[in-house]
């Protein structure tokens, strides 16, 4: 039998620190997209809550916590991150395993919003994009999911095939922010 070794979408390029900002890989575990069948939205929301103990998130919101989290993931679309989905939910939802389809990173540190603002058209201002908010948008022209996890911490997801470009683009943005904050040329390309 052939033994296959799972490889990270980021292939050893992370973690990465530039100035005050850190970029790291998130091992999200099982990821499943759930879409309600026609007319099953309410039934699915309550079955989901019963099965996993977390709310079915409304548009632009997340629920749960690290290890068992639900992300609003688009029109009629929620992504469950962490647990294997309860099989009985398939009565109400189409479920698709997306575990290998996404590269997931966390970017955090003082000035993180300035770095992201260089890459996405989203309105990230404090009053508009709060902790627990999520959006589907673009990061450096790539389709992405952006979630605010903490005051200075965001989760960014892109299709796995774009993971390398994501790291490059975020690194350049982080260098720009660090340079603005008082220069730190020595930090360029500092993979630690």
């Amino acid at each position: 039998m052939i033994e296959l070794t799972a490889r990270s979408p980021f292939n050893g390029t992370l973690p990465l620190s530039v100035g005050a900002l850190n970029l790291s890989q998130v091992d999200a575990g099982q990821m499943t997209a759930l879409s309600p069948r026609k007319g099953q939205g309410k039934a699915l929301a309550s079955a989901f809550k019963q099965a996993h103990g977390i709310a079915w998130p409304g548009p632009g919101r997340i629920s749960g916590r690290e290890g068992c989290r639900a992300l609003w993931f688009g029109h009629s679309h929620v992504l469950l991150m962490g647990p294997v989905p309860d099989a009985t939910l398939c009565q109400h939802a189409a479920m698709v395993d997306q575990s290998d389809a996404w590269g997931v990173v966390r970017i955090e540190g003082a000035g993180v919003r300035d770095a992201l603002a260089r890459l996405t058209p989203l309105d990230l201002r404090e009053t508009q994009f709060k902790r627990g908010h999520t959006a589907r948008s673009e990061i450096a022209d790539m389709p992405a999911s952006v979630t605010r996890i903490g005051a200075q911490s965001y989760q960014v997801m892109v299709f796995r095939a774009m993971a390398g470009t994501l790291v490059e683009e975020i690194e350049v943005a982080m260098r720009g922010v660090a340079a603005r904050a008082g220069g730190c040329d020595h930090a360029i390309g500092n993979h630690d």
Partner: protein
Amino acid sequence: MRITCPICGERDRREFHYQGAAVALDRPAPDAGAESWDDYLHNRENPAGPTRELWHHEAGCGAWLVVTRDTVTHEMQGSELASALQEADS
């Protein structure tokens, strides 16, 4: 240019893909005749003023929208989910 998505709120135009006039929602019956089908497939108005058109929130939530836009001023006058309009019709 900013477009208001009924689900996501006001977003940058670059998240959206333009499909064309919102005639796709008024598909003629299969036996409606050649003239109706010719209109549906090929003939378009070119109005100066408010126009209903289909936009796809491609890099956002993925919903299809019917957006009313003034072609003279580019003012965005409103948007609705295409799926909601279809359900209201049927």
